[in-house]
């Protein structure tokens, strides 16, 4: 923590009050607590059943801190189980997917989310493997909290808060980003909460990470209007605007309705303002009808949208229409709501900053 002087003093006094006030139990969620002397920050807590099956013993823990370190960003957390049962460390985190070369024993299914820069930060892998502990580095005794860590790529300079994803989707939001590793660092395993913080990989290990950017995955922000006429998905460098076909067209028709004009005018204005280079317009249908008919209808609808957008986007933007029929559903075609979501025309364009 970066408190100084009077603020630090007040923080210490407040810390004792926070702990007192919250005894005997901590409601799961995101209480902000801090131990006396500011030695053990707590940004938020979580609890969940092991393996994410509610008949399994409960896992409890806390996110302690996210700290900038040279060459990376360190996450500190702790996990454990009540004293009445042994701690099943194998049930704490899901096995990492095969997307990244983590090993099944790596405590790698933790991440930081930067919602402003749209980045999903995963633990890096160096020459000696994941910059994270192995599950076997946690102890097995109930009644203890074992401290874990992970080193992600460096966050952009302006990022002051992140969300932390832990394990099966548990989240702690608004975690402040601090500077420097937590101290004192002790090279013990297992690392029990309150006995010092895990020693992080040294600078040589961090320097051994090839292309840290590969561990920052594009985050996608999804916002629609209340009627879902237009749903916008934005990721770094790209925007997809999904237009509800039921607003644009009558059933089985590729002729734009009068109600479509205002929607398309707004889309054209955004494309004109933000698009860099080529813009694709793709028609989609639900699974009703034959694939051949759906392919034809989706292409005709994409062409209709292209024609309507072109005057508004200006001559410097090229719109390319395509129809993919029912081949790329975004919802379940077994329900009316799902079919309605699948009937759409998407307008995709590149933007700066990606």
């Amino acid at each position, binding site marked *: 923590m970066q408190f100084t002087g009077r603020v*630090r*003093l007040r923080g*210490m*006094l407040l810390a*004792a*009050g926070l*702990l*007192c006030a*919250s*005894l005997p*139990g*901590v409601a*799961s*969620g*995101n209480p902000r607590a801090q131990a*006396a*002397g500011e030695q*053990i920050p707590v940004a938020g807590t979580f609890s*969940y*059943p092991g393996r*994410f*099956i*509610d*008949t399994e013993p409960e896992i*409890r*823990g806390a996110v302690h801190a996210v700290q900038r370190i040279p060459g990376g960003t360190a996450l500190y957390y*702790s996990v*454990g189980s009540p004293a009445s049962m042994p701690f099943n460390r194998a049930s704490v985190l899901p096995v990492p*997917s095969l*997307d*990244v070369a983590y090993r099944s024993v790596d405590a790698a299914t933790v991440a930081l*989310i930067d*919602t402003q820069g749209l980045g999903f930060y995963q633990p890096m892998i160096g020459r000696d493997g994941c910059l994270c502990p192995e599950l076997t580095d946690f102890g097995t005794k109930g*009644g203890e*909290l074992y401290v874990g860590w992970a080193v992600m790529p460096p966050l952009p300079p302006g990022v002051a808060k992140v*969300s932390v*994803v832990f394990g*099966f*989707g*548990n989240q702690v*939001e*608004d975690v402040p980003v601090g500077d420097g590793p937590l101290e004192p660092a002790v090279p013990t395993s297992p690392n029990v*909460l309150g006995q010092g913080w895990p020693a992080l990989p040294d600078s040589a290990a961090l320097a051994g990470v090839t292309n840290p950017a*590969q561990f920052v*995955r*594009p*985050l*996608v*922000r*999804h*916002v*629609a*209007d*209340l009627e879902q006429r237009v749903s916008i998905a934005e*990721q770094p460098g790209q925007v997809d605007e999904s237009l509800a076909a039921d607003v644009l067209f009558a059933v089985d028709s590729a002729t734009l309705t009068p109600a479509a004009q205002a929607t398309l005018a707004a889309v054209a204005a955004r494309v004109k303002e933000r698009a860099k280079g080529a813009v694709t317009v793709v028609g989609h249908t639900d699974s009703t009808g034959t694939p051949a008919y759906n392919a034809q209808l989706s292409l005709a609808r994409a062409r209709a949208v292209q024609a309507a957008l072109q005057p508004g986007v200006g001559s410097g933007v090229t719109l390319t229409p395509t129809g993919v029929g029912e081949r790329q*559903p975004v*919802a*379940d*075609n077994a*329900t009316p709501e799902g079919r309605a979501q699948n009937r759409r025309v998407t307008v995709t364009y590149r933007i700066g900053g990606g």
Partner: protein
Amino acid sequence: MRRLHLLAGAFALLSLAACTADPPDPLSSGGPSSEASRPQQPPEQTTGQKLTQQLLMGAEAPASVTTLRGSLARPGGPVAVEVDILAVQASAETTLLRWRLRSGTGQPQQVLTSSLSRPGLVDTRAVALADVAGNQRLQPFTYIPPLKTEDLRCTCSDVPKSVSAAGVQMYALFPPLAANATTVDVVIPGLPTAEKVPVTR
């Protein structure tokens, strides 16, 4: 100032000790007592031990703001479930929804389904927030995993394989609500909309 810090730290520790101390032992109150008969005092807990005890002591189950009953579509037929909306916590950057999914029959049952996501995925990205104040409908952030071009992962919980009467707490991280939004509607496919859920900031 350093002395002040030490004093404050000592006060903080004393305060902690006061709020965690056992009640007085009636057998030892008043009168002389020999060293041998005096009850053994447990060693004083460290800050780490106190915090550990606090965090492990038994997280109180969050109170439900509202409970919904409905069913999830599965290939073998719909599965009755109950959902507790626990909290919608908003900040300038994000909105975090916490909810609990549990069996609607009281018995453990399989619930793994794509009906809260999109075909082939078992996350809960179809859960939405309708923010009337902001005239916007929000869905959880998703992300593109390595070696893929589609956003196949979500900043939301996966649907568990099964749930019982206890249920599993679920999370979903959304973009921010309008700054003046005090309530929000929570939309979960297959269940009635939870209307006007209070937003905490």
